[in-house]
Structures are given as C-alpha cells and as structure tokens.
C-alpha cells in the first residue's frame, strides 16, 4: 500500500517537473518578440523595461541579455523570411530596406545558439555606417553562405560534411539605436527591410 502510494507520488512529481520545466523552457526559447510582428520581424516593446512581464524578462535572459529599453534601442528579430519559412544557412536571402528613422541601425546574423557565426571573412553584420546605399538612400543586403555579394553577410555554410545538408537555423537582429518617436511609437507600422529567399545550395 505504502509502496504503491510512493510510486504514484513519484510519478506525479516527475511528470509535473517535466511538464513545468519543459513548458517554461519552450516558452523561453520562443524568443524575443512574438508580442509584436512587422513583416518577418518580431519585437517585444517591453524589452529592458521595468514594465516587462516575467515572460519578457525570461526571453531577454535567454536571447537578449543587457538589452536596452525601447526609447534607447529597439531590437527586431527575424527567424523566418517574408514567406514564413525558417531561415537556413544554406540559403541566400535579399533584404531591401528604405531609410530608417533612427540615429543608427545594424543588421546582424546569429546562429541558433544566439552567438555570431564563424566565417572566414569575420563579417557578422552590415550597418548604417558600412552599407552601400542607393540614390534614394535605401539599401540592399544579401545574407548568403559565403556573403560574397555587395553588402553581404556570410552564414558560414560550406556544404562540407560538418554542415548539415539542409543548413542550420539562424536569425537576424535589426538594431535601431536612438529611434525617432515616430519609430518607437509605431513599431508594427514602420517600413522595415523586406526579407526574401533568393535560393538554396
């Protein structure tokens, strides 16, 4: 009788631990954003803020530690392209952007582990002060395995045996430093770079 009770109690505790920790980890890894979407980009306006809820704080701790609040910097993240397909290091993506109403911006590529991806060029980002712009002050950035195009950022995929055949998941972060009020008060409506798939290896 006692053994049976202890077995049931142990089962309850084990399943509760798995369910509780698993669901928490899944939500933490759901990442920054989700609260607000703009094209392929997602953000959480409460990042870094004292008004942030427990889930926002947990997501910041996992994927955006030491992030600034939105009046100082806005962080948009893209895990998928404009068609909703997950980003893959084996593919080439074209980002087309118009001038952004902010003091400075950058777009950085991160691996699934949230760190910079090793590549032979040591090129991890493009930014307002590095990108070549067109006559209308807009810009086109290519994110591709070797990053060889103009304004390119490599994902480091080589197709070698150490790479998975389909490539690995990655994400992009768009940072807007000292955004104008028109930007941070309309995060869902401002024109952000489009993100389209050009092809895969």
């Amino acid at each position, binding site marked *: 009788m006692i053994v049976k009770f202890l077995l049931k109690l142990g089962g309850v505790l084990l399943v509760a631990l798995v369910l*509780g920790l698993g669901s928490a980890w899944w*939500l933490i890894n759901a990442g920054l954003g989700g609260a607000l979407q703009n094209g392929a980009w997602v953000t959480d306006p409460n990042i870094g803020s*004292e008004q*942030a809820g427990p889930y926002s*704080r*947990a997501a910041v701790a996992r994927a955006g530690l030491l992030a600034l609040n939105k009046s*100082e910097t806005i962080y948009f993240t893209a895990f998928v392209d404009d068609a909703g397909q997950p980003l893959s290091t084996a593919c080439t993506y074209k980002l087309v952007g118009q001038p952004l109403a902010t003091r400075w911006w950058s777009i950085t590529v991160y691996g699934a582990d949230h760190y910079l991806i090793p590549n032979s060029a*040591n090129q*991890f980002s493009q930014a307002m*002060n590095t990108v070549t712009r067109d006559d209308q002050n807009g810009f086109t950035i290519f994110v591709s395995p070797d990053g060889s195009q103009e304004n390119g950022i490599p994902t480091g995929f080589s197709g070698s045996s150490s790479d998975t055949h389909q490539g690995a998941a990655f994400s992009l972060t768009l940072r807007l430093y000292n955004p104008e009020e028109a930007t941070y008060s309309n995060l869902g409506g401002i024109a952000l770079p489009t993100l389209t798939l050009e092809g895969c290896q």
Partner: protein
Amino acid sequence: MKSWPYLLVATLILAGIVHVGAILSWPTFVMSRLVGGLESQVGFSTALHAPRADASSRTVVRPSPDLIYTVCAFDVSERPLKISSPVPADTYFSLSMFGDNTDNFFVVNDSQLEKDSVSVVLMRPGSEVSELGGAPVVIAPSVRGVILFRTLIASEDRFEELDAIRKEATCEVM
C-alpha cells in the same frame, strides 16, 4: 474510488507551480551567473574592457560586432559606486545599468550629455554618502547588477582611438 482524476489535478497544479517558478527565477539566475563570472574575472566595481565581439565571444548572447563594450559588476550593499567615463566625439556612446532581474533601469547616451565626460553615483535606497562631487545619483533597484558602456565603432580607422577612450571608464567604490 478511482484516484487518477486526483493525481491528474495534482500533477497539473504542481506543473504550473514549477513552470511559474522557472519563469520567475530564470532572469535572476542568468544575471547572477553573469555577475558571478565578472566577479571571478576582475571582481566587483572593476571595469572589464571586452575585446571586440566575434564568433569566439561567448559571455553574453547576441553581442553586436559593431560596438565595443566595457562592463562592471556592481554590489552597492555596503558602499555607493562612482561611475565615470570620457564621452567620445561623433559616435554613439551610452552608459546603461541593469538590475538583477535584467531590467535596464538607467541609460544615458552621448547626445543627452552636455560635457565630454559622464559621471554618476549609483547607490541602494537609503544609502548615505557624504561627498557626491556634484554627480547625479542613480538608485539601484537591486544591490547587485551590471553596468555597461557601449561605444559604436563609427569607422574602422577610428577603432584604436575609440578603444583607448573607452578603456578610461571606471567604476569606483566611494
């Protein structure tokens, strides 16, 4: 009497408690690990000038390779801290502070500063200090946390100059 409905309810209630506990404790766990790591590297109230971020950078997730960072771990449980730095010209610079729950409770950037340097005092609520030296006071919501100086590498040919300036940042116990 069947016991499985009671077991199911107990399991779900316990799972909910574990879930909430994990979500609430994760930010403070991660911050305490970061603060502890800085303490073991350089100690509290000492500026650590991190090398420019690259693929080998593993201390903080999603670093920006376009910025250079200087960081201090703080503990104001006993004494306030004076934080100072020169402000580089013609580029983005900010001084920010983070509590033990990840909140960014203070930030000031170069465009908001009138001088070519910044100096603030960080203290816990109710802390007493006799000499502030005219520096503005920031009240920390937690006794431990992190101070971060960001400097934008405006151009590659300015890297040496900006790197030298940011290394003058200090965090000193008063």
